């Protein structure tokens, strides 16, 4: 079972996305701020990270670079954000994000993208 780390500061969105992913059979760990996210990243070593861009303490872009700094494992990242603007997406990819999805997004689409990323590892 693939492990997913979900970093999203809005609790209800986090719960909804988490609930969907659990129903899809993933093991999901949730956290609400960037700092906790970085900590969990090291302890959980998930297979994939889904992160928002605007987060308390540590921004999603920093999370992406933190993920890429982990060498033990090839962790995939999907950036999830209202920031549909090209600049941010570009920066996220520059930092090593694997995919992004713009809010508002469809949970079905997110699930498909997650599966696609996981099949690559």
């Amino acid at each position, binding site marked *: 079972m693939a492990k997913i780390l979900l970093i999203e500061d809005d609790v209800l969105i986090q719960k909804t996305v988490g609930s969907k992913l659990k129903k899809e059979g993933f093991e999901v760990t949730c956290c609400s701020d960037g700092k906790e996210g970085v900590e969990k990243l090291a302890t959980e070593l998930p297979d994939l990270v889904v992160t928002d861009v605007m*987060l*308390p303490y540590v921004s999603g*872009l920093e999370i992406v670079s933190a993920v890429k700094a982990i060498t033990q494992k090839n962790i995939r990242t999907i950036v999830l954000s209202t920031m549909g603007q*090209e600049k941010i997406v570009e920066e996220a990819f*520059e*930092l090593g994000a694997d995919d992004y999805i713009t809010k508002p997004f469809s949970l079905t689409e997110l699930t498909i993208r997650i599966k696609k990323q996981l099949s690559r590892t």
Partner: protein
Amino acid sequence: MIGQIASDLLTYGIFLYAIVLLLFYIAIGLFSIGDTRKYMHKNSFTDYRLLASSPHAPSVSILAPAYNEGATIIENVRSLLSLYYSNLEVLIINDGSKDDSLQKLIDAYQLEKIDYHVQYKIATKEVRGIYKSKNPAYKKLMVIDKVNGGKADALNVGINVSANDYIVCIDVDCILEQDSVLKMIKPFLEETDAKVIASGGVVRIANSCEIKDGRLVKVHLPDNYWAKMQSLEYIRAFILGRMAWARLNGLLLISGAFGAFDKQIAISAGGYNHKTVGEDMELVVRMRRYMEELNVPYKVTYIPDPLCWTEAPTSKKILGRQRNRWTRGTIETLKFHKIMFFNPKYGLLGMLSYPYWFFFEMLAPVIEFFGMIIFLLLTVFGLINWHLFIALLVFIISFGYLYSAFAAYMEVTTYNMYHRRTDMMKLLIAALSEPFYFHPFVVWAAIKGYVDIIRKKNSWGEMTRQGFGPTPVKK
């Protein structure tokens, strides 16, 4: 006989002064209600995040001057970088710090010196170097190293270097809410025919609050008496005073710890003045005066959301110095712009704002101080009825209580930062002591400011800060 006439004149004068002041306070209180309510409703369905991500959002630079902030600078910069706003540039201006602030920043954020042409649109001390990060995750950050020249000079360098349309000036050790830039910029986007030249924000007291990694986690009323009284003062000033003045478009002061400005107007007006210790107020007054003289309609707006938290002085000594400096800043600013005093050419600014500041902010401590002494003397020599004197005091003090209670009510029904009932109780009880302890102290500090200015003392008065550590363990 002459003594009688003099005492009569004085009595009438002071009565008149007290009555006008009282009326002003009532007007301010009533005036702030409507706008606060309207703002709260508006806020309740405004999606600020929209602006954070929009490519059409205006460009903003945060200017944070730092002098010997090595202990906390890394954390402070990190929290500035996590502010929600994508079209943002964070400028840290190292004002010739004697500590290792710059090296710490270089190490923590992988900075390198870059080629950057500094335009000295406002004359300042020399810039030694400009640094940017090699890591794209810190793209928003720019560090400016300059020769020491004081806060106003550092801010001017920031204005010169900023490539963006709006500037948000802050104290680097302030704690900002993550939405703060979004909320501060919005008034500029609601500009009508009157150009919005500046927007002020609220500063609240962070003492005793729980702070984690440069972010405010839980708000508490300060335990320290002096800080607690300042909380009350800030609530009164920010929730009632500034709100009412902003509604009239008569705001003269935007706190140096948190204010946003239209960069072009700030430059045209000449930037911050390093010849005064009250550079924050002076800039607003000068920008307003500039617009009045150009005869272009303009506005200075104000945002009542509690977005910026700062540590207040907790000792009499440092508080005294701060108030001393504020008094000098006010006197200097008003002196620079005395041409506006009751000058109809400057509209509301000249006819109401300036005179109000002159009589009820600048002169208030003097009138109170000498008024009290003279009344005491007159009473002692039996020239006036002591009974009347006491009654007058009781009257004024009870009005002061009413005003404070009203401010507390407005705070509770709007932002309600102190939601614990015990906190509110402590605040109200502390308010009772104000006229007997805190207020006389503040007046005394202001009088000292007068004395200093007469002696031409120009130094900033070192403000030693304790730095935000972990919340001190309660005794």
